[in-house]
């Protein structure tokens, strides 16, 4: 808001407290609306892709069940079409699909003949835990690293930045195998074979967190350097604050914003990108289920995972948006 200075000590009308909080509510509602829209879009697109995909769904279903790949006669297909409602008009199928989703029904897996929701809920926990743990760990790496190396002279900054670039470029499978060899095989600190316990989660988490820390570090470093040059840094020093205090208490907060943006993206990436790490560490999770479902053309399961992933992604970005408002209260004023 531009400040209208009347020369007197008047505060612009927009800054009065109640307005500000109604702005906030409006902003959250708008964001929620957008979130629902994105979810609806994902569901619809998934449905359309499924129903217009080349290859008859009933045929695929039969073939998956029997493990064959042959043409089916209309007599064979008719009961399947009736059971799954494939013979209904597309609009009816769509409405049935959406209302099913609203009741938590993601359909049944073609291959396993079980509700998709059950399959996902069995596997989601290890994947979700891994993704969140990796993100948290990446931040735990990044913040002290930034405080140690950013805004403290060109040489240290270049070193810190170079280290981040290298980390960000490391392939996950390579980091994973390296960690396995060093910590599981040589040092024998962690089990080689995967599981979902705490000890089994450490190495996969580090594997995912290391490159991510590089990315987040890069994104907050330039903002950190910029904030270091702001006059409020000098003001705080002149108040008697130590250089380290100013960096941790003032500058870091300014630098967090691009990192938070990146975290929202990273969560989506982690949820669908854990496959490799789960494979390297022989860890159960959604990744393996997804790969298998794609291989067998189990579209019900694929779309279920897709919708769930996008739901989590959108939800997390909604939370990220709320975190923005906490970190940068200036955004609250903007509608």
């Amino acid at each position, binding site marked *: 808001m531009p400040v209208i200075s009347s020369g007197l000590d008047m505060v612009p009308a927009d800054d009065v407290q109640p307005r500000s909080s109604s702005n906030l509510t409006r902003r959250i509602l708008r964001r929620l609306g957008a979130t629902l829209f994105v979810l609806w879009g994902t569901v619809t697109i998934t449905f359309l892709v499924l129903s217009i995909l080349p290859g008859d769904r009933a045929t695929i279903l039969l073939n998956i069940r029997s493990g064959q790949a042959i043409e089916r006669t209309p007599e064979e297909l008719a009961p399947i079409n009736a059971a799954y409602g494939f013979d209904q008009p597309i609009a009816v199928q769509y409405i049935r699909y959406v209302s099913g989703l609203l009741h938590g029904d993601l359909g049944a897996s073609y291959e396993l003949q079980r509700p998709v929701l059950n399959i996902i809920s069995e596997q989601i926990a290890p994947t979700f835990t891994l993704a969140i743990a990796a993100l948290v760990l990446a931040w735990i790496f990044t913040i002290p690293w930034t405080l140690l190396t950013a805004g403290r002279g060109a040489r240290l900054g270049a070193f810190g930045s170079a280290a981040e670039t290298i980390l960000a470029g490391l392939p996950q499978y390579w980091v994973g195998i390296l960690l396995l060899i060093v910590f599981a095989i040589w040092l024998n600190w962690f089990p080689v074979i995967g599981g979902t316990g705490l000890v089994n989660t450490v190495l996969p988490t580090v594997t995912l967190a290391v490159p991510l820390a590089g990315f987040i570090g890069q994104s907050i470093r330039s903002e950190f350097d910029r904030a270091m040059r702001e006059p409020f840094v000098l*003001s705080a020093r002149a108040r*008697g604050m130590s250089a380290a205090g100013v960096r941790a208490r003032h500058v870091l907060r300014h630098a967090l914003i691009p990192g938070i943006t990146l975290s929202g993206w990273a969560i989506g990436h982690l949820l669908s990108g854990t496959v490799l790490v789960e494979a390297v560490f022989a860890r159960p999770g959604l990744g393996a289920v997804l790969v298998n479902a794609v291989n067998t053309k189990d579209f019900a399961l694929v779309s279920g995972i897709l919708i769930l992933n996008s739901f989590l992604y959108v939800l997390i970005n909604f939370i990220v948006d709320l975190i923005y408002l906490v970190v940068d209260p200036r955004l609250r004023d903007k509608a």
Partner: protein
Amino acid sequence: MNAFAQAQVMSHDGMGASRLILEVRDLNVWFGQDGDSRRHVVKGVDLELYAGQCIALVGESGSGKSVTARSLIGLAGAGSRVEAANLTFEGETLLGRSDRWWRHVRGSKIGLILQDALVSLDPLRPVGKEIDEALWLHRWGDRASRREKILKILGQVGVPEPALRAKQRSGELSGGLRQRALIAAAIALHPNVVIADEPTTALDVTVQAQVLGVLKQMLARGTSIILISHDLAVVSKLADIIYVMRGGSIVEAGPRDRVLNRPRHRYTQQLIDAVPSEHTKGTRLSADGGVLRPGLFSQSRGRSSNNRVPLLDARNIVKTFRSPDGIRRTVVKGVSFTLARGETLGIVGESGSGKSTLARVALSLETPDSGEVRFEGRIWTGAVPAEQRQIRKRISVVYQDPLSSFDPRWRVSRILTDAITLANPSRAQDARQYAAALLEAVGLEPVHLDRWPLQMSGGQRQRVAIARAIATEPEIIILDEAVSALDVSVQAQILDLLTDLQAQLGISYLFISHDLGVIHHMSDRVLVMKDGKAVEQGTADQVFYHPKHAYTQSLLASLPRLEYAQLRMAASAR
């Protein structure tokens, strides 16, 4: 409390009785590594500060005044080397002190106030928290007593409703309030010495007067102030002793009245002469000027046309914007003005008064919601685009920061030839020669053709901007705060240049500024804007000497002026 009581006994005009608080002998500051890249920015500075006194360091950008002041709190900057024969504060040396020692002194014994609180206070935190930090860092009181103290200090610097304001961030406060909050954070622990580095720069004149009032009260309470400013008028309001700095050295020092009225150094005299005001009207502010070659401009310009029709005629302009939250704000509310050939119309007003929007409407860059603009009697607003472009060629604009209106990948030659050929394609062959002639006309040299704008000083860039503005042989130049970011001596040169160009080319100026002195110096007629309305219009002398509207009167009353009589009054009032 002790220091307070003690300081109050002392007078701050006489030096005899007062205690010497700060003594600086032969202060030198270097930046950078040894060798060629090392810069000597403060050269042998001597200063003395007595209790309850205000000393001012005056100088232009790069004079070393800020670095001098910052080395007094051990914050000269990264990569600096500070040496002095003597640097004593309250009997203790400031040289070779540990970081821990400094942290104890900063904020509790010496405070620092910077320019523009919008960025000098952490924009993400409430101002109350910033003040709390000053107390907390020095382990002052507990949570509850600190809270009480914050409200008390805010009240002391004249912030109404301190409980509400303490919860707001600097961006939520008006310019005057946030500058007071910044002062409150710096003086929370009542430091004996406060360094105020351009504390009123970039503030509107009425707000500036309020902040000066707060500083004056601090002086009256016995705080000593080191005031750093480029603005002699501000300095004249507050300082007991003035130190004039140039190129890292002090060229002149002495009591305020003596320095301002009988300057001994030529540079001080130049600085004083360069300040535009009502007294300088019709005189030159600087020594040099450009050379305009005869015949540089074609004579076929629209001079012959009817002189009775004003060149630009704006009638009842109303312009409304919709802000992001959907609320419509009327920025210009029914303003009319005319601009005659060869005339300068000054538009003065504080930030947000709608002056720039009015100029954009005059340029037809914004379409007014109602009202019309005529150029030589022809309606311009709402004309067909082709015709608008024809007219727009005859109007140029110069903004405050030319850098942002230059393509950074273009050299000066391209900036100028681009404008030349756009206005007159037949000039394409000798565009470069013409560009060189334009540079000479604005006091630059042909060698500047191959420079990048980034390599040039602020004054040089503004000259290039003016050269580009006159390249199209315009009849009107809109100058939107065109000299506001320049040092006073550079500003003087640019103002002289503009005056010369007007005399030689008969260009009309629409001169927009918040600086009343500049407006009075330059304008034939003046339009005073407040909250989107033209509250007063008339000849410059009418408006400045016999203001009719209460707002104009309050503006003029808050304006710090450089006059002997005024100095006298201020001195006796204290």
